[in-house]
């Protein structure tokens, strides 16, 4: 047997391997080049959370469309809540996502709301038990600005074989937060005027914040184009406000549990803080409970 006959299969294997392993090695912040290169990998599932009419007008090839509103629903009069486990797990399965699928979230990135919709869905999928979830940096806006390929296909997926199971350590309830005031680092991710108590949303009962919380607005994670700021800026902000101890217990909250997903994502997924939970009920639930303490007009 000629040498090449023995070597060729090894070469083929060697060349083929990196493609598979790179798809599996999903960055948390996915750039458009990575997605263009790996989007067709069967281990990757691209989930576009824009409205169906926007999706139909053009999307990342291979993407499926599951609108944001399917991932975060109104429940018990609270906005942006996790669906019931049963429905969430079915949604994940129907989206063709297995526990080990590398999921890339794509959506608009025009406003802070758009930007944290991406991280909120990432949080939801991690909660649902999906191991690898990344967010497209700059969202579909960047994909489009970079003149990457577009598809207008129906964007359907075959349901996954198995169901995932919930990963509850990412979620904090009101009682958890109450028990941790003064003990864990509670991060208020709203804008400083909300933290300080000079502004509040109409559906939040009282102005102010959870006592002893610190302020790190999720709006400050992103550039004005909707991309993540450079890593050294994100790291410095996290260190400056949350501290450098990555094992510290951290709870993030906002008004409805949407904004807070921004710093949950950066702290937990990107910077490697190991114990970060999001309080899904957030101020909308907290401020409505007259027994839950709140402070305002100070920074400390």
């Amino acid at each position, binding site marked *: 047997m000629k040498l090449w006959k023995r070597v060729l299969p090894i070469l083929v294997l060697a060349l083929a391997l990196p493609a598979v392993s790179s798809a599996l090695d999903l960055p948390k912040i996915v750039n458009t080049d990575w997605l263009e290169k790996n989007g067709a990998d069967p281990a990757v599932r691209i989930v576009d959370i824009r*409205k*169906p*009419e*926007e*999706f*139909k*007008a053009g999307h990342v090839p291979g993407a*499926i*469309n*599951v*609108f944001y*509103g*399917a991932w975060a*629903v*109104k429940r018990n009069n609270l906005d942006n809540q996790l*669906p*019931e486990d*049963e*429905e969430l797990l079915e*949604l994940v399965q*129907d989206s063709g996502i297995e526990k080990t699928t590398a999921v890339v979230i794509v959506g608009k990135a025009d406003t802070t709301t758009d930007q944290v919709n991406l991280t909120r869905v990432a949080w939801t999928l991690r909660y649902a038990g999906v191991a690898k979830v990344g967010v497209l940096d700059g969202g579909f806006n960047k994909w489009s600005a970079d003149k990457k390929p577009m598809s207008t296909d*129906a*964007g*359907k997926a075959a349901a996954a074989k198995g169901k995932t199971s919930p990963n509850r350590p990412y979620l904090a309830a009101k009682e958890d937060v109450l028990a941790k005031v003064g003990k864990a680092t509670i991060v208020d991710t709203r804008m400083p005027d909300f933290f300080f108590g000079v502004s509040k949303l109409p559906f939040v009962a009282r102005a102010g914040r959870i006592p002893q919380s610190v302020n790190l607005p999720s709006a400050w994670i992103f550039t004005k184009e909707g991309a993540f700021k450079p890593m050294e800026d994100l790291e410095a902000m996290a260190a400056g406000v949350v501290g450098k101890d990555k094992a510290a217990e951290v709870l993030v909250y906002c008004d409805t549990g949407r904004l807070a997903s921004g710093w949950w994502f950066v702290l937990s997924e990107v910077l490697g803080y190991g114990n970060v939970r999001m309080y899904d009920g957030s101020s909308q639930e907290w401020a409505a409970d007259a027994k839950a303490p709140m402070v305002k007009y100070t920074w400390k």
Partner: protein
Amino acid sequence: MEKRPSGDPSLCGQCHDEIAANFRKSLHYTTTGLKSGVSPRFSKEEAGTFAGKVFPKACNSCHASCGDCHLKSPAIGGVSAGLLQRHRFVKRDEGKTCALCHGGRVYPEFTGEYGGTPDVHYQKGMICLDCHSKSESHGDGSVQASRQERKERPSCAKCHPPGKETSEKAKSAHAVHGTKLSCSACHSAGPYRNCYDCHLGKGAEARPGFILGRNPRDPKTVTTLRVIPTVRDTFASAGIRMEKYDALPNYWGTAPHNIKKRTDRTRSCESCHEEKELFLRKEVLLPGGSKANEGLIAVPKSLK
């Protein structure tokens, strides 16, 4: 400048002759449905006043032109969201066209923006024309007095034929309720929009609600009812006092566009048979409403 070049479909009809001919007879163009819906409340004389004074200025001012769906967003209250794709004709762009005229009720229910969850079909990427056929937009050449008379209408059973249930619970629930309840009675996710107190030219007030009761068009079945805001003095400013106001109820069967597979009602018998708040009851009837409303009351039996 001609502001609405396709206000008369004959322009577009020079090429699209069949569609234009159909469209002339369609409910989107004639808005006859609006007249049919309210006319039984009028005396003969009032019907004349309505047809002459109210209908052309109010109801019919809303009729769609070709361009309202294929070139630009329709103008609602004089405001339009502008061209769809510069000056290009567009086959369909429901979120900018259907959604504007049907944006008070169905569209925001469908997308979840009215509160609650998006309709399961929207979640799966379906939009208006995925269920509502082209012939609903353009008409089919026949003349109907209202959309109820159309043959080709969306139907749950067309895609979800009975008998394909996978769980025993679904099978038995469908077997027991199938002929008595509409699909939406159980599979609507939650509150939908109800409009109250319309006065001619002044608009109505809207509140979310969820109301189960007899379908006035098919009183054997119970379905989701929506308040239609015609009150006794809606047309008072036009001199119409609606002599036969009580001929029609204020609640009408509706398909709230927030379909969900699992709801409180699919999960528990008690949610209907014990906790009866969702049902139209005597004590919650609209004050001063039509006498026909009482006929829609249907409260389920207790299980015990």
